[in-house]
């Protein structure tokens, strides 16, 4: 089952539409899949995902998790700290999951992970801090 607010957010937000990210589930945690597009290329010789796009997918998943849990429609990113663990290979989808660590009155802290083959082999992880409105 998917929270309708998240589907609306993906459809109404230009940058999210550009990513083409789809929600797999929003209960209990937000999980998404982002399919490969040539415009995501970071290294054309390796045909790998751009690190910034990987970070963007983590952020988008984190944003959806905040909207899902905090009953807010808007949140602004204060900080993101991304660690890149493995190369993200092109032509393969990126799966992402975000968990709200704490959702306070104004500040929401989220951890997010992306993987390609298995969640046990994460491609990148991120810690995100959002300001809720």
């Amino acid at each position, binding site marked *: 089952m998917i929270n309708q607010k998240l589907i609306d957010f993906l459809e109404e937000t230009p*940058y999210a539409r*550009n990513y083409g990210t789809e929600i797999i589930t929003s209960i209990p945690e937000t999980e998404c899949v982002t399919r490969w597009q040539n*415009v995501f290329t970071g*290294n054309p*010789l390796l045909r790998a995902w751009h690190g*910034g796009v990987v970070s*963007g997918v983590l952020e988008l998943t984190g944003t959806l998790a905040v909207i899902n849990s905090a009953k807010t429609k808007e949140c602004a990113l204060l900080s993101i*700290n991304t660690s890149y663990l493995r190369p993200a290979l092109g032509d393969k989808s990126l799966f992402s999951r975000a968990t709200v660590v704490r959702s306070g009155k104004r500040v929401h802290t989220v951890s997010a992970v992306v993987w390609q083959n298995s969640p046990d082999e994460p491609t990148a992880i991120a810690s995100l801090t959002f300001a809720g409105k």
Partner: protein
Amino acid sequence: MVFEQGKTGIGSTEKLFDMFFTHVGTHRDLGLTLQNIEGDIAKIHLPFQSKHADSIENGSLHTTAIATAIDSACGCAVMLHLGKPAAIATVNLRIDYMRKPEPGRGLVIEASCYQYAEDFIYVGAAAYQVNSKIMCCNAVGIFKSDTPGPVLGMEIT
């Protein structure tokens, strides 16, 4: 912040960066261009495009687009420091967002290496609104050079 003097002696730095921006799909999509190089500081222009906006009406550049541009600008700073095309990988990147860019306006990202140790290169970057001293975000990153794999741009040196 003390900037170490890099080895920026290659004659085709602009050509390398031009290739870096025109041959990489994400850079083309973002419309990234090299504004100029001042010593070890690479200045990269990120134009506003509605597809990278945070909302349909009166939108500003979204943080995901800024993050991608900052990652690329940091990569430029690393290559500027190394003085040659190299296979590099982002190990860690932290970005703090202080201010949302004004709607419809682009950003200029300034990136430079401030330290290096063995294969690890430490980069600082900041994004400013075009023609303004207003800082929108600040970033620090750790990059690794000489990672396995082919080197983009090696053929032009």
